[in-house]
Every structure is written in structure tokens, then in C-alpha cells.
């Protein structure tokens, strides 16, 4: 085996060790307890497997002279043959590679990791045994985890009661993991492509390379899941330490998400219409079959779908990066709260008295308040829009962020108007002709199910409006403005009106979402409207696929729904979510279900991304050390 691949194997071992160290530091082995060592070895094996597989494929990429992702971002039908050729290349390579070399590499990598783990845990055990504190803070975590990894109790470590054989076992297990991984690579290599699993899966689902059987299976999947959720129940499914309610929630999320894929898989025309109608029916029955908790999560998901659709108009269609979108959500929520909760602010009641309305509460029901909330939010959108009209890119981002914070701080500090941090309590629930939905449906629909149903209907409405607008001349003007503001204006787009419309419509949708959110929450507080809501909304449209309404639904399912499923791993919830966010961006930067335009854009190397072309760079100064350095370069004579 050449020296180079030996060093590579050792490096693989080092990276695996670093990764395992991280897991140890955040306390995973301690949580696992007894079987910690085998579990960690299993994780290492998975890691080695991917590394080794990638390494054995890499040369083929060099040979074809492609980047690491030659076909990333191309529509599915263009990938098929290429992926297949890649697979055969792997086979070819492996046959020449003779499994032995690979196994040797795996052994070396595993040995490196195992030795390092053994040495480090040996040092910890020795230190503990001799009563040496590692670090007051780390002493809370380290002994427990080290003990779990060595396979003894913390007490045994403290008494230096650890035999040498235990460390040997560590080395052996990890080395074994390496060999196992290498064997797995040679064994399962016939149908590999080097694309990451997530990317490959979704690409298969979204591209027409699928066989018709697979296509029908894909279309049928959401219905099967829905049927399962509805009728069969889920006896005994209690994975992840959760109850079946959580599993059912997960299945609901998957069913909804796979419904969107089913829509994409079905042929345009009658088939698609039929699938859409059936799916619509299926989804509308969901509020009736889910329980209170699942309904409440799904309600939140669809409230965020509305948010995402609104923000998508601003960011995805008009290309205006808005980090303060939560402001309109807050305005919608508080407007409804003012109009429907017993809390009465002297200002509001004064205003009402002025208008000749008696300030008795709840003043307005949900439906009467809806236009008010939407209008207030729209006015907020225009008020934000006016000062930022001339700002671009990141300046716009920070000003909108500031606007969002200002609104939140006002909610927090203007105690007489908003009741400050104590929030507004007992916001009334949306009723139907004076009846609660629970009454109307004889208890079939729970209060949260009703909110979910409303969220579903509202987001369908919002999606309808958003899609129609995007397909009209306004949508074209937005897109033109996003592409090139100056040219758009010179082509006849009224920038002020077009931008303000984007802000206002986006804000209106957020206002609707905010109102429903207030109804869902019953009590609202300024903390509900922090910067993180904006970030969530932005993240969900990007994860889902910017510009694509279906992607937004998926994004909301993933970002607002999954964390609820992950409740079983409570303290690891956010780290997992954060890691998923980063992975997502790397594996599939155009989102799970990108819009058609987005795909074009990624195929196009001139996209003004981080590598912006000179035209965009004009607005974005490079690193300038004094103010006029840049002006000298550009303020000179015109370009010729």
C-alpha cells in the first residue's frame, strides 16, 4: 500500500477521533450508558464506510475531469445515465483495487481511532484514579463519559479499578469497525453513485428517471401513510423513547411531505388534478383524526407555511432580504389580541371611544378582526418599505432586522399599550357563527384541530394568491427587479410601487399568520416575536427551496415539525437541528424542492452569489481601507 493512502487512512482515523471526541464532550456516551462503546464503534464504522467509499470513488472524478459535483443541480432526467456510468466506474475501480488494500486502509484508520480513544480514556482514568481534577466544569461530564466508554462505573475509575484489557477492547472494537466498513464498501459497491443519500433520494423523487412502478408507489405513499395514521393505529411503536403520539406526528409530517412529492410525480393534467383533490381531502381530514398535540404542531407548521409564503414574496420573488419579518407577524398577533382579549389598554380604549365604539371586550371576533389585522400589517409593511427603498443586500438585511427588534422592544416596553412582558392573555378563539368548532363537530374536532384546519385553509388561500400573483405581470416585475434593479426600472418597472407591493403583500400574509398564531397561543408575549422567528421563517424557505411554495411547506414540516418529534432527545434537539441546517445547505443548497427557476440558476455559473459578477459588485465594495479607495476605481470614466 503506498504511503499516500496510508497517511490518508490515518487522517481518516484522526477525523473520526475528533468527531467521536465531540460526541463524548457533549455527553453522548454518558447518556447511552452501558452499550456506549459498541454504539460509538458503530458510529465510527459508519463514518469509515462513507470515507472509504468516497475515497475509492474520488479518482474517477479526477479522471472525468469534473468538479466534485458534476451533475449537482441538473434536472433529474439528465442525471440518470451519468450516475449509472459512475456506478460502473466504481465497480471497475474496486475490482482493480482488490479488497485487501481497502481492508488494510480500514484497519489502519480504525486502529488510529481506537488507539487514540484508548490513550485518552487511559489518561482520564489515570487522572481520576489519582484524584487529579481535569477541570472543575469538565469533571461533571468527563468521568461519566469516560467510564461509559471504558465500560466501567465512574466509581471504578475513581478507584483506579480499570484493567488493561478494557483499553485493549477499545482498540480492537474500533479496528474491527474499520475492517467492517472496508468490507461493506467492497461488498455493497455495485450500485453506488457518489451523490449524498439525501440528494440522491430527492433527485430520484423529483426527476422523471423513475420507473412507472416507482412513480405510482411514490404517489400512493402519502395515502398509505394517511390511512395508516387514521385507521390502523400504531400499536407498540415507541422508538426514541417517545410514545406513539410522537411517532404518529412523525408519520403525519412524512405523509404531508410525501404528498408534495406525489404531486410532482403525477403527470400534469388529469392525473395531477386527481392526486391534488385526493390529497386535499386527505389533508383536510387530518385535523379530525389527529390528537390535540399533533394538531397543535401541525397548526404551528401551517402558520409558518403562511409566514414562509409571505416572506417568499419578499425574499424569493422580489429578492429583498428581510430579516425583520417577525415584525408583521407580531403586528398581526397583537392587533388581534387588542381586539379580542379582555386586556384593554387605555390608548386602545381611548381610540375606540373616540370612534364611538364602546371599549368592551372581546371587541371583535376572529373574522371581523381578520381584515383589521391584515390591513395593520400591510401598513406596517409599507412603513418599513419606504425608508429602505434605496437600500440593497445586506444593508437592507440589517435595517429590517433592526425594524423587527424595534417592534419587539416596543411591545416589551410600551407597557400601557401592550401590557409589556406580561403579554396579553385570554385571546378569544375563532368561532363559527357564535359556535365553537368543538360544538359544531360534536367533539370530533379539538380546539387545536380547529386551528390546524384554519391554518390549512388560510395557507392554501395564501399559496393560491402568491402563485397567481407570481405568474402575473407583477411576478415578472418582481423577478426582473431581483435580476437587475436598474434594468428593470429602465424597462418600465415602477420600482417604488413594485417593492412596496412586495413588502405589503408579504406583511399581509404575516399578519394573517400572526392573528392565527395569537388564537392558537391564547396568550401572547413579546418574547414570542424574537429575531429567531424571522430566522426560522427565512431558514424554512431556504431549506424548502426558495421561490417554491411546495418547498416552503416541506421546509416548514422539517423545521417546525421535526423539532417536536425530536423532543425525545430534548437537550440535543437544537444541536441536531443546527447540524441538519448546515448539512442541508451543503448537500442541497437549492432546497428540498427547488422551484424550476432555481434549478436554472444553479446550472448557470454566472449566478451572482458569493462570486458576484462585476455588475453586482458595484453595490458591494470590496475590502476598502479608506473611504475613497473604491470610489477612485469606479467613479472614473464610464465603462467602455
Amino acid at each position: 500500500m503506498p504511503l499516500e493512502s496510508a497517511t490518508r487512512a490515518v487522517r481518516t482515523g484522526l477525523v473520526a477521533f475528533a468527531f467521536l471526541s465531540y460526541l463524548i464532550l457533549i455527553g453522548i456516551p454518558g447518556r447511552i450508558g452501558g452499550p456506549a462503546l459498541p454504539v460509538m464503534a458503530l458510529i465510527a464504522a459508519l463514518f469509515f464506510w462513507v470515507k472509504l467509499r468516497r475515497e475509492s470513488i474520488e479518482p474517477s472524478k479526477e479522471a472525468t475531469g469534473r468538479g466534485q459535483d458534476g451533475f449537482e443541480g441538473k434536472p433529474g432526467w439528465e442525471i440518470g445515465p451519468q450516475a449509472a456510468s459512475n456506478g460502473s466506474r466504481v465497480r471497475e475501480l474496486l475490482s482493480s483495487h482488490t479488497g485487501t488494500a481497502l481492508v488494510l486502509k480500514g484497519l489502519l484508520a480504525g486502529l488510529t481511532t481506537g488507539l487514540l480513544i484508548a490513550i485518552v480514556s487511559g489518561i482520564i482514568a489515570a487522572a481520576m484514579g489519582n484524584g487529579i481534577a481535569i477541570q472543575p466544569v469538565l469533571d461533571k461530564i468527563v468521568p461519566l463519559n469516560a467510564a461509559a466508554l471504558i465500560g466501567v462505573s465512574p466509581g471504578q475509575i475513581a478507584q483506579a479499578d480499570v484493567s488493561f484489557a478494557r483499553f485493549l477492547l477499545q482498540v480492537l472494537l474500533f479496528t474491527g469497525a474499520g475492517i467492517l466498513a472496508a468490507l461493506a464498501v467492497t461488498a455493497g459497491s455495485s450500485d453506488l453513485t457518489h451523490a449524498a443519500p439525501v440528494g440522491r433520494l430527492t433527485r430520484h423523487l423529483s426527476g422523471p428517471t423513475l420507473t412507472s412502478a416507482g412513480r405510482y408507489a411514490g404517489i400512493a405513499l402519502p395515502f398509505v401513510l394517511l390511512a395508516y395514521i387514521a385507521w390502523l393505529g400504531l400499536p407498540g411503536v415507541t422508538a426514541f423513547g417517545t410514545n406513539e403520539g410522537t411517532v404518529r406526528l412523525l408519520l403525519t409530517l412524512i405523509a404531508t411531505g410525501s404528498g408534495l412529492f406525489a404531486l410532482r410525480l403525477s403527470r400534469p393534467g388529469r392525473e395531477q388534478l386527481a392526486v391534488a383533490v385526493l390529497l386535499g381531502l386527505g389533508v383536510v381530514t387530518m385535523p379530525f383524526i389527529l390528537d390535540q398535540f399533533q394538531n397543535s404542531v401541525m397548526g404551528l407548521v401551517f402558520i409558518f407555511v403562511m409566514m414562509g409564503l409571505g416572506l417568499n414574496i419578499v425574499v424569493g420573488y422580489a429578492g429583498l432580504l428581510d430579516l425583520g419579518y417577525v415584525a408583521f407577524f407580531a403586528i398581526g398577533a397583537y392587533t388581534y389580541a387588542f381586539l379580542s382579549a379582555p386586556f384593554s389598554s387605555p390608548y386602545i380604549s381611548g381610540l375606540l371611544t373616540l370612534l364611538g365604539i364602546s371599549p368592551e371586550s372581546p371587541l371583535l371576533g376572529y373574522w371581523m378582526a381578520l381584515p383589521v389585522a391584515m390591513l395593520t400589517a400591510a401598513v406596517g409593511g409599507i412603513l418599513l418599505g419606504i425608508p429602505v427603498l434605496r437600500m440593497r443586500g445586506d444593508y437592507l438585511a440589517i435595517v429590517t432586522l433592526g425594524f423587527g427588534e424595534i417592534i419587539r422592544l416596543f411591545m416589551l416596553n410600551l407597557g400601557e399599550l401592550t401590557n409589556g412582558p406580561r403579554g396579553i392573555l385570554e385571546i378569544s378563539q375563532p368561532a363559527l357563527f357564535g359556535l365553537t368548532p368543538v360544538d359544531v363537530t360534536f367533539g370530533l374536532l379539538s380546539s387545536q384541530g380547529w386551528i390546524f384546519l384554519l391554518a390549512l385553509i388560510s395557507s392554501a388561500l395564501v399559496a393560491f394568491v402568491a402563485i397567481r400573483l407570481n405568474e402575473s405581470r407583477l411576478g415578472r416585475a418582481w423577478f426582473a427587479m431581483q435580476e437587475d434593479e436598474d434594468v428593470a426600472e429602465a424597462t418600465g418597472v415602477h420600482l417604488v410601487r413594485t417593492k412596496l407591493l412586495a413588502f405589503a403583500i408579504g406583511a399581509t400574509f404575516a399578519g394573517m399568520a400572526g392573528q392565527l398564531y395569537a388564537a392558537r397561543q391564547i396568550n401572547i408575549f413579546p418574547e414570542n416575536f424574537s429575531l429567531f422567528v424571522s430566522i426560522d421563517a427565512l431558514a424554512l424557505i431556504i431549506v424548502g427551496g426558495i421561490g417554491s411554495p411546495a418547498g416552503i411547506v416541506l421546509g416548514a414540516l422539517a423545521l417546525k415539525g421535526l423539532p417536536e418529534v425530536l423532543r425525545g432527545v430534548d437537550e440535543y434537539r437544537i444541536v441536531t437541528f443546527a447540524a441538519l441546517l448546515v448539512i442541508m445547505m451543503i448537500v442541497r443548497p437549492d432546497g428540498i424542492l427547488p422551484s424550476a427557476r432555481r434549478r436554472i440558476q444553479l446550472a448557470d455559473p454566472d449566478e451572482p452569489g458569493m462570486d458576484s459578477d462585476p455588475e453586482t459588485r458595484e453595490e458591494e465594495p470590496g475590502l476598502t481601507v479608506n473611504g475613497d479607495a473604491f470610489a477612485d476605481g469606479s467613479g472614473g470614466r464610464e465603462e467602455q
Partner: protein
Amino acid sequence: MTALLSIQQVTKVFGGLTAVDSVDLEIAERSISSLIGPNGAGKTTLFNCLTGLHRPEAGEILFSGRSLIGLRPDEITDRGVARTYQNIRLFGRMTALENVLVGQHLRLQASHWSAVLRTSRQQAEERAAREFGRELLDFVGLGGREEVVSTNLPYGDQRLLEVARALGSRPLLLLLDEPAAGMNPSETDRMMDLVHRLRDEKGVTVFLIEHDMKVVMSISESVAVLDYGEKIAEGTPEEVRSNARVIEAYLGPEVAVQEAAGNAIQ
């Protein structure tokens, strides 16, 4: 013929540099005029002043007798001035047809509500717009390429698409910024033919910046020359060709008049 566009004493200053210096110019209706000059002479800046991208420090620009100064670019387009760009600035991710539809933006009236409800009027308008867009694409020679994403079009076609997009707003005056730049001879011929047809078939007045002297001399009815922001000559192609200041500006003072006049200047 009356003057469609009248530029009076227009001056544009960047920092300490006067890019356009008190330029006077008149463009007759239904004419084809050219603006030439060495690199950095201020030609594109003058175009930018005409279309409202820049606001001149001084001077007056009258279009059909009404001032364009201080109007927004979209308002100027609404008055009937459209343009193309020297470095092609298409809406890259849009298809050819969509680009032309954006060009028609100003001429579409349907309200946004009707777009949401898809009223029959709005639908009819959209259909008409698409029809007109196809017509324009046919006119510039891009028939059958409606659904091609504009960045994927060949270079020469992108220039043609810019013209089609500009025509979408049904302009009276079309400003072409180096329409033949980077084109091969046959593409150049197509472009020259298009310019003629623009005037003859569509009745559009054309005002263009061009470096290719063959183009300028063969299609222009009048030519103006800018150098260091000043207009140094104006007249028919023949007059300009023999103007001593022009030759000096292009080739430096030593070069003989005849030599310059005979050659295309790159």
C-alpha cells in the same frame, strides 16, 4: 422632419471629472443616428442621462417637446424611450419570452386583483401580450426560441433579445448601446438589417452608439462624435469621416486624413 429628441447643454460630472460636457444634439423623428467616440468619451453616460439612470448636473433633454429631466427611468420608458445595454443586461434566469413580457410591463393594465382571480380580461391581456411577445421575437429573428432561458442563448441572440425586450414597451425612440459589439460579420449584417427594419417597419427612431465604423457609416443618417465628454463633430457620415478633429481624436494628430477615412476604426 421635426426633432424627436433634443439634447441641450447637457453636463454630467462624476467627482471631479466631467463625463459629458455641455452637449447639444438633436435627433430627427424616424431617423437613424449614431454617436461615436473613443473609449471613455462619455457616450454611455449620455445614454444613461437620457434614460434617467443618471441625472445631469445641467442641461435640458426634450423628448417630443417635453422635458425628461428628473423623470424616473420607468417614466421615461413610458414616454417612449427604450434602450439596450453595452454589456448585455438581460434578465438571465428568465426565458426569452418572459424578457419581452417584462418589456411590455408598462403597457399591461390588468390589476393585481384580476391576476389573482384570473378574470377573462386579464387572461385576454396576457394572451395578447404573449402573442405580441412572440411577434417581436419573430421580428428580431428569435422565432422558436421563446422558451429558451436567456443566458443560454448565443451571444448574438442575446443582443437581439435585448432589442426585442426594448420593443416590448412600444418605444418611439430606441437607444442601442453598441448593438454589434462582439458580433461576427454575419451577425453584424443581421443587426444592421434589423436596425433598418426597426425604422422602416416599426417606425422607431434609432439612436445608437457603435464602434464598428462600417456599421456606423453604412446605416446612419447622421453621426455625432464625442471626445472627452464634448461633442466635437456632427453631420452626415461623410462629413464626419473627413472631419480633422475626429481623426485626431481617434488616431492621434500624426495620422493622415485619408488613411483614417478609409479604414474601419476599432
